[in-house]
């Protein structure tokens, strides 16, 4: 089932962040991530990402059979896929700010994942908040 995950990016710097999926090996999967003004928009996406080799703009995945993360006081070890999303600074700067311009712009996104030999699904999605930032 698709997870709800709001993420935020700053307009003036590249976006390069990871989302870890516990319990899955998504090696070889096909990825597609679009950013649009509203869910349901069918026009050309504001940002369109596909499979890539980082740090090139796009989506990539690495699998860790013994990924460790903290769960309260417990250190959990489990297999996990680390999905890395890279968006160039130029791409983000090309996105328009809202009105007023000092407020974040809430756009929307979701990530399609087609596992190798599997069925396409939405892995996660939600708001993509573009923050105007200060330093240019």
């Amino acid at each position: 089932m698709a997870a709800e995950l709001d993420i935020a990016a700053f307009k003036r710097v590249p976006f390069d962040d990871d989302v870890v999926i516990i319990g899955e090996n998504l090696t070889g999967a096909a990825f597609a991530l679009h950013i649009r003004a509203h869910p349901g928009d069918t026009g050309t996406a504001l940002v369109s990402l596909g499979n890539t080799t980082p740090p090139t703009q796009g989506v990539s995945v690495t699998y860790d059979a013994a990924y460790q993360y903290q769960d309260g006081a417990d250190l959990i070890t489990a297999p996990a896929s680390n999905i890395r999303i890279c968006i160039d600074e130029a791409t983000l700067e090309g996105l328009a700010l809202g009105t007023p311009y000092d407020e974040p712009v809430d756009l929307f996104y979701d990530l399609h994942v087609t596992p190798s030999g599997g069925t396409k699904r939405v892995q996660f999605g939600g708001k993509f908040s573009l923050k105007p930032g200060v330093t240019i």
Partner: protein
Amino acid sequence: MTIAIITEAGVRKVAPLVVVAQQAAALAQLYAGVAEASVGNRIYPDYATGNAATSAGQYFFVASAGAYALHIHGTATALAPFPVLDPATGNLGIGTSSPAMPLHINKADQSVARLRLQNTGTGGHAFDIIAGLHGASNEGISIRDVTAGATRLNITNTGDLGICSATVTAVFGHTMQISDGSANGTVSIVGTSGAGYMATFGASLIVAGRTGMSLALGANDSTKMTLSSSYIVLDVGLSNYADDSAAAAGGVPVKGLYRTGSAVKMRVS
């Protein structure tokens, strides 16, 4: 930078600075060999040997001399005598950090060099398999009925066998000694019992069966005597003497058998 971890339970957003700090602390526990204060029954990674548990219920995972094993510590720092699980072999050691067998118990006295099997059901007893002899020696191996307070089986270091006999007095060769605690000792080979049972006293050898019995004695693949439920066969070549005096002169002992013609006789005093 990880911004979220998605599990079956849902999305966990990760606050970067907090995560780094938590992971650092966790990794420090994992790799730096720092003992942690006890928080209930936890297994803390602790790669440094010699770290002591600070309170009851604290346990450590300890690396030993470059290998990795699970050592469960209580309040002592020594690796022994607490259980050691060797992941390379799957062997479990109690009292040894190098278990050689799937279960290896290593102790220095018969009082504790034991494996106890206990049946708490109706009529059940507790039995100890002892490397040694209860209350007496570290030699041999024995089985003791703990509930009854009696040793039932004892094999000495020289291979002699004692049944209900704590000690074995070897005669020559290998000895099997049977004792019921008094001067009596009975070896019974009993088939399906019929009505009642054979009661005897003194040193006895009982061979009894529902449909019959047979006791054969022989040497060099030749049966010399057969005692069955219907006949006695002696194949020992009884000498022929005219009478008791002649048999005595011929060396037949009192109560020994001889024949006069086809008549079998016994010498009398």
